[in-house]
């Protein structure tokens, strides 16, 4: 019984870990490059979800100042994780953009986006080259 209660109030951890594992396995096991990139994004979003959920305090507002009044930190949620995740998102976007650019180049060079086929072609080319 206590484990169910334990799971109940840690649902954030469960959600982010399952998402992480899904993304991890897609990125690792799938041979299609586009699917790999999608898997990578799922993995990154799950980590961002966990990171931001660490900063959430029940019953408080989002950390945006209206009209520059006096700032009482007690009313607001912890802003640090969301600021960090901005950088995290930028990093994830740039890695995705780089991977997409490489996929386009690979498609032009090999005519396919599937890593296994690419390895076959290269091995057959290397074999007789």
């Amino acid at each position: 019984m206590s484990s169910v209660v334990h799971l109940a109030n840690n649902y954030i951890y469960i959600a982010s870990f399952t998402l992480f594992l899904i993304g991890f396995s897609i990125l690792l096991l799938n041979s299609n490059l586009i699917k790999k990139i999608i898997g990578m994004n799922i993995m990154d979003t799950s980590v961002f979800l966990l990171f931001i959920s660490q900063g959430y305090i029940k019953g408080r507002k989002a950390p945006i100042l209206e009209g520059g009044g006096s700032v009482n930190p007690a009313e607001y949620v912890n802003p640090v994780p969301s600021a960090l995740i901005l950088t995290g998102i930028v990093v994830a976007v740039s890695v995705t953009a780089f991977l997409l650019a490489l996929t386009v180049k690979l498609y032009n060079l090999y005519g396919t986006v599937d890593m296994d086929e690419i390895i076959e072609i290269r091995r057959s080319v290397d074999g007789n080259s």
Partner: protein
Amino acid sequence: METVRNFPVLIIYIFFIGSFIQPLVRNVRISLLLTVAISAVSSAASAAVVYYVRTNGDFLFDVAPWSAPWGIELSIGTLEAFVIAVICSVGTLISIYGIGMVEKEIPARNIKIYNALFLALLGSMTGIAATGDIFNMYVFIEITSITACGIISVKDDKKSIEATVKYLVYSSLASGCILLAIALLYGITGNLNIRYIHHHLTEVMYLYPRNVLLASCLIIVGFGLKAAMFPLHFWLPDAHSSAPTTSSAVLSALVLKAYSVGLIKILTGVFGIVVMSLLPLKTILMYLGSGAVLIGSLLAMTQSRIKRMLAYSSVVQMGYIFLALSLFNRTGFTGALFQILNHALTKTLLFLSAGNIKYYTGKESIEQLKGIGYRMPVTMAVFSVGALSMVGLPMTSGFNSKWYIGYGAIEAGKIGVLIVIVISSLLNAAYYLPVVVSAFFRRPSPGDEIQQPVNLPWFTSVPMIVMAVLIIVLGLYPDPVINFISGAAKIF
């Protein structure tokens, strides 16, 4: 003397601003010379930092106007100063070598981009070593992975693009794990500065034992994957062998080291000795290290192409570093740091000479290298110095790092580790010496008779000769370096 305190940040700025300027430079030669100038300036600055740390000990430096727990701070100790000095100086030598060779391997339109990526890579590696904030370290790790993949794919041919994709996939896997570990640690301790996390972690550890265990496993897997720890090293041979010469030299000599230093900083800084001894880290690192050292050498023996063999031998040498770390004693740690310096020099030397051979004679596989010693005397002489250092001959720096790790193993009571090290240096001999033997003592196959010996332009041969001399000097008299390093080993 106080201005030296902001040199580490200055080095990072110089590298990044230098890499931003690169696209603006008009012709290719100026951009290559700019790279050399910038890395030379920063290695001078890093030498000043080393001198400063040697005289007045560690120091902290707040990058932003806010102080530690909120702003990012750089904690520069003996370990960090040493690693920054290694990165900058070896980077300078590689960039000097690059003046002659980069134009020959990378298509002209990409050279400016290559130089920008090269400087950004050196800057982000210095960042990994210098920073005291783990999220900032994560950002630098990401920059290093992207720029490292960049300088592989800049060669624009089939193999390098495919190797880059593979490398980028693996490294984004690792980054995911590292970021998840950081999220967990942040969840428990509430801040990102290494010192503060360590402070809170020791209190809060008993409340969240599973979080700490999971975070440490994720960090080991993440950094292990990036630093080519033994079972997670499969991306390395493709990536390092299909990259252009200078980038494969930077990759295996410096990038792997930066990640292992990141691992050391987090393990000793964030977790600290108390937590580390609770976690089964010792046994994990020892078995993975021994696996790398033995099985890596066997894999390297089966290779027929030089660059792939050198790539596998990088896995072996990284295995030495992890083996030395697993000993958890002062001599072992000094051995690990000295091995970082030794491998950075030796591996760069070997990759550069392999690149030379490939360019001047177009030969890549080891059988074709018969009698090449007489065609390229300087390159092969330098290559054999590097090979003998890898084998651990007494007069070379390779022996000293093996001696320290071996002696540390005995002090830690693990004679098995010493035997593993000695067996692996024999295995290293088994795949390095045939190359040297066939270069000097085998007559060239009838096909390619020897033309007269190739004389290399000065900027290609000078860095290689400097590195060979450094290897021998470090072999004969490593004392000043080792006394400086053992300052970092006080934590054990």
